[in-house]
């Protein structure tokens, strides 16, 4: 009796373990995946890499198989654009690096690149391993799944939707984008693993100002953030407010008004954000198109009320500029103490880790 109980217990534990451990790659298809344009990258569980494909109007998930924990490392590649261009057999001014993402387990860095500058550019995904070796992530024979996004009519060659950010949060893939015709919020929430023909829920994201004017405006970038054990996203709109939105509100057909917690100033687009803790304090590091890299002090952000009054200077959460970081185009999490930055200009790009400030 005692033995059979033990056996039952063992079986129960095994079955439970099986259910819990079902890998995120289950149900993926093996074969060639068509990626028309390489865009934003994000890692999900079990080495799954999400690739935003604006021209293909879809998000592709691939199984990188890259699940082995890596040793603590850092990255420092000068002239990463020249090196990538060389490996792709072309000149540095003929590629564009679209995004970088760190595999949170292995610490290998994945880079999305378009080879060519015209409409016939080829999408390439690269891996930079912790030893500094650059290799191509094959898309011709890979385990993959695809979530199609609401697509413009096939006969319409004019309308496109540029994916500006992809993130995996709590079993959902969140996709932000900007249309070349409509000015509207374009947030899509797609449960992962992708179900067949799931085009994701379109959510209208409003934000207010002075508790008066309200705009259905596109979100440029966002980052998952936990406040008091509740999952939020912090989202930066094209018209600059930074808002917090509970992930539980992101439901199909929902119309959500985010709470503005900061305004980042004119002539500027937030490009990327990283949330981190240092010495017990919470911060956001934000790369901006013209305001450099800013560090936001997130202390007590849970208690912030929406900005409801006109503000002539810095509003909401306090922030400072990290003056030594220049021309940062992409900013990603690397580990608990470092962030990964892609910086530079047409004269050359560098990919390196920096100590979180």
């Amino acid at each position, binding site marked *: 009796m005692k033995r059979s109980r033990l056996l039952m217990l063992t079986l129960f534990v095994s079955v439970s373990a099986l259910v819990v451990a079902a890998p995120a790659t289950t149900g993926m298809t093996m074969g060639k995946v068509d990626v028309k344009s390489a865009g934003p990258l994000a890692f999900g569980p079990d080495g799954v890499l999400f690739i935003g494909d604006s021209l293909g109007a879809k998000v592709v998930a691939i199984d990188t198989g890259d699940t082995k924990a890596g040793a603590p490392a850092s990255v420092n590649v000068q002239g990463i654009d020249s090196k990538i261009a*060389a490996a792709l057999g072309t000149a540095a001014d003929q590629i564009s690096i679209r995004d970088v993402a760190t595999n949170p387990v292995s610490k290998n860095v994945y880079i999305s690149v378009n080879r060519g500058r015209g409409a016939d550019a080829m999408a390439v995904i690269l891996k930079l391993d912790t030893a500094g070796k650059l290799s191509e992530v094959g898309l011709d024979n890979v385990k993959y799944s695809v979530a199609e996004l609401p697509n413009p009519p096939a006969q319409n060659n004019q309308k496109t939707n540029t994916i500006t950010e992809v993130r995996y949060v709590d079993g959902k893939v969140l996709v932000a984008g900007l249309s070349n015709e409509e000015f509207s919020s374009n947030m899509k929430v797609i449960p992962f693993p992708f179900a067949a023909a799931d085009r994701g829920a379109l959510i209208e994201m409003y934000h207010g100002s002075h508790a008066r004017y309200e705009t259905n405006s596109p979100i440029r970038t966002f980052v998952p953030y936990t406040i008091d054990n509740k999952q939020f996203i912090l989202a930066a709109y094209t018209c600059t407010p930074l808002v917090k939105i509970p992930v539980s509100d992101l439901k199909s057909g929902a119309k959500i008004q985010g709470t503005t917690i900061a305004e980042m100033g004119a002539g500027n687009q937030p490009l990327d954000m990283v949330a981190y803790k240092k010495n017990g304090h919470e911060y956001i590091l934000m790369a901006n198109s013209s305001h450099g890299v800013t560090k936001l002090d997130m202390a007590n952000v849970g208690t912030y009320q929406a900005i409801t009054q006109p503000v002539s200077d810095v509003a909401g959460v306090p922030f400072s500029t990290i003056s030594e970081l220049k021309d940062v185009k992409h900013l990603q999490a690397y580990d608990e103490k470092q962030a990964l930055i892609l910086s530079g200009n047409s004269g050359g790009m560098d990919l390196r880790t920096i100590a979180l400030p």
Partner: protein
Amino acid sequence: MIARLALAALLLSRIGVAASFSIQLDNGAFKVTGWTAPEPAGGWASIFTVSTGPDLPPLFGAYSIEGGSLTFHPRYPLASGVTYHAVFHPAGSAPLEATFHGPEPVAAPQARVLTMYPSSPVLPANQLKLYILFSAPMQAGDFWPSIHLIDQEGKPAYLPFVGQELWNRDNTRLTLIFDPGRIKRGVKPNVDLGPVLVEGKRYTLIIDREFRDANGHPLAKPFRHEFAAGADERRGVDTAFWKLSQPKSGTRDPLVIRFDRPLDYALLSDVFQIPGISGVATIGPGETEWRFQPDQPWTTGEHHVVVDMALEDLAGNRIGRPFDVDTMTNPTERITKQSTSLTFRIP
């Protein structure tokens, strides 16, 4: 002593063989002709690489033996304007090097800017988008320094556009979105700096020749487009103000919808449908008209024009919903339907 002599002979024979093979570029593949030795332990890449310069990683690609030649197929096609250095260096031999050039650049006609939309000479001061139409596909990336907006004193506008590239599928139409934070009332950029465009002033959009086409060529000539800024347009679009023409039964006269204000050029191409009737739609002058000529003569009776609610005017105001809704006066104004319908009767 015998062993030493044997080694020398081997080296001599290898050097002798080295003189008899060569590196060639054949149909996009790099070939070492006359090399028949097996793959070395370090792989073909340990003895034969192609790169675009010193201190740069070799090209991605695959090796094979084809027709007795060691062949390297680059993963990506060779690019014009790029020089390729092939180095074959088997153990014990002097390296053999060869330099090749990518294909000649395409001698295509130079691209030019066809026009800009909105075409109206006066735009609302809260204008949201501009569309630039090119005669040929253009290069993406790094074109922002070639785009300028200056006022009537020649002073450049401070960061007027959202720095996000927005192309159509073949890179022939570029959308420029004015910084929405400068347009939306009550947000910090609007409060601090005010709008980009000021009513009563004149502006010129300039696109320099340096804007490159898909083949890397500059524009045939720079582009300038002048316009004036008028009053803000803050009202939602109201179809009740539109006027529909009355085509007669049995004719193919166009149905013309005249708007009370110019509407968004790009969206006008997409948003109208007349269910069950095929025909050709065109956009009238100044984007103030939509014209539809049916393929077959009109039939007597009631017809409908379905209008997608995505339609915007020049300032991003939609049907029944302004760009920024004043929630003090319209606390619940959120449109949920996807389309609206206009009815017209053919007599």
